[in-house]
């Protein structure tokens, strides 16, 4: 028997099993190490490497109200975007889910089409639409007989509209994936058991799509924290985000230590926030099912 084992030579099939499968992770691990881990390590080094006798940039970040304001601006915009995306995205995804096949493809293409246009042209397009004399305001003023335009530019509303526009396809696609995994027979079964269409949706369909809702919210929120163009173009001074202040600190003022400290602070907040979210919503467990 040992002979038989010994004779068995190494073959290509060994690449598919056991520890050898780690080999397939190697390119990804190398890329992450070089492009993600190393820059963060550098950030940490820069943020800690201060001349003796000077105040740590972390103390600066946490004591200076402007930085906390900016962090909270960013979080508020991201949270608002997440909620609006969910409120618009769930009905949209559900409509696409239940549409008959030719329409389904058409509406899905319409959602995906916005991917084809970059964030920059979209943000500037909103200026045309949302301005005081833009299309939206003209329509609103005429429809409701307003004398004053409804301000939607250079404030939180503009930022929310622009960011929702960018993030909505991500939310819709995530939800659509979760809806596609709901077995088709469950809602009819609930109906035969006495549930109205509305209750069957609430008691059976919605809980089945909760993993998608939680994952979609998580993704939208985290992604929204890193927005730069949309708040810069559509927001006002009150909507300054972390990314915008980082740009000023580094490229404008050359204050790399404090910029690094701010970055690390935001990363730590994000990681803790995500961990609490995952454990509160039991996202990990649900995905295992």
């Amino acid at each position, binding site marked *: 028997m040992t002979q038989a084992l010994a004779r068995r030579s190494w073959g290509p099939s060994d690449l598919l099993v056991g520890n050898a499968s780690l080999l397939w992770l190697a390119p990804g691990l190398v890329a992450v190490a070089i492009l993600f881990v190393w820059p963060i390590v550098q950030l940490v080094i820069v943020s800690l490497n201060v001349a003796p006798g000077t105040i740590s940039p972390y103390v600066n970040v946490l004591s200076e109200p402007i930085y906390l304001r900016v962090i909270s601006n960013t979080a508020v915009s991201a949270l608002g975007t997440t909620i609006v995306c969910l409120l618009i995205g769930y009905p949209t995804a559900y409509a696409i889910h239940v549409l008959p096949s030719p329409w389904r493809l058409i509406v899905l293409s319409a959602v995906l089409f916005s991917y084809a246009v970059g964030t920059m042209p979209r943000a500037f397009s909103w200026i045309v639409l949302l301005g005081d004399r833009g299309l939206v305001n003209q329509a609103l003023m005429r429809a409701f007989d307003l004398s004053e335009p409804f301000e939607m530019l250079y404030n939180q509303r503009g930022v929310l509209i622009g960011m929702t526009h960018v993030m909505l396809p991500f939310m819709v696609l995530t939800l659509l994936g979760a809806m596609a995994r709901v077995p088709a027979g469950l809602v009819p*079964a609930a109906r*035969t058991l*006495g549930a109205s269409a509305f209750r069957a949706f609430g008691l059976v369909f919605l809980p089945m799509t909760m993993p998608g809702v939680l994952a979609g919210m998580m993704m939208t929120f985290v992604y929204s924290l890193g927005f730069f163009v949309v708040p810069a173009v559509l927001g006002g001074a009150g909507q300054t985000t972390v990314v915008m202040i980082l740009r000023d600190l580094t490229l404008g003022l050359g204050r790399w230590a404090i910029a690094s400290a701010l970055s690390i602070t935001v990363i730590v907040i994000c990681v803790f926030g995500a961990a609490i979210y995952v454990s509160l919503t039991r996202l990990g467990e649900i995905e295992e099912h």
Partner: protein
Amino acid sequence: MRSSSGHSAGGATVEVSELGKAYRSVVALRDATLSIRAGEFVSLLGASGSGKSTLLKLIAGLERVTSGRILLGGIDATGLPSERRGIGMVFQDYALFPTMTVEGNIAFPLRTRGIRGEDSRRRIARVAEMLGLEALLSRRPSQLSGGQQQRVAIARAIVFEPQILLLDEPLSALDKNLREQTKGELKALHARLGVTIVYVTHDQSEALAMSNRIAVMDHGCIVDVDTPRKLYARPRSRFIAQFLGHANLLPVTVLERSAAACIVEFAWGRLPIRIENVALEPGAGKGARGLAVVRPEHLRIVDATLGGGPHCVTTTVSQALYNGSETIYRATCRASGQSLTLMDKRPGSRSLEIGDEVLAEVDPAHLVVVPDDRGAA
């Protein structure tokens, strides 16, 4: 009409008349008329695409009716949404709710009816005991075996004591032994609850074993409705004869027809057949052609050396399939060259070899003649 005995919910009548369903240009069901008595167990038996599942879905209210009417318990339910039909339904894949425990699943139809608290717990405990689910109530459907899931699906469908229970191929996902056992359990459950059951299946042995009556379906039509015994022993058409069990179909010509019997000529001789076993049109007299239906178990194997009587066909064995409790032989009729199937059910009888000459004795009492409607719609 709920009885107070607790375990018996009683049954309601199900009547469908000239029911039709078309999906765009495809007709899935046409002119289905069927009247099911309260407490009856009726199977809809047919191959896939025969319209049996469509008929069940229409009764359940899961599909919109194209034409015709549905009466449940005498009340017109044609346009009623599913949740207001008061039916229990067990789906082929059970359709248990994965986000709920077994208890949550069984409680679901009670919850939608506003039954809560002690009343709900009492009902759940009763069906759980009935179906042996007491130990599984806190589990998730994903932690159950196929047989357990099926019992949860049944529990969920009967816990609110519906008067009509619809079952869509509930045994098809189970393995063979469990299927056999569950047949008996379902029949016992039917007797205990007294509920009207409409049971969809493509498995004739399930339909024959459990039903009070079987509606045989083909190409969107109900072909025949009768008791399992009558359908099997006295089929009225070639389709029914071939669809239920195995049938040797032997071409015959009518020689004489009287009020009591019909004398028909086979390739090897002539035999009288009781008139109630003749399904030919009343006008089909002398010279009319038909098919004699001979079940394999009614072809008795006789030792060729003993010589044959008038009911004996001389055949040559071409294949032997030993099956434990019986042996199935294929044999070629010497007179017509037609291949016949014979079943030897006598345990321990000597086996026949291929090429052996054998006499098959036809039992005239079990002979049935049906029209040769091949090619007819």
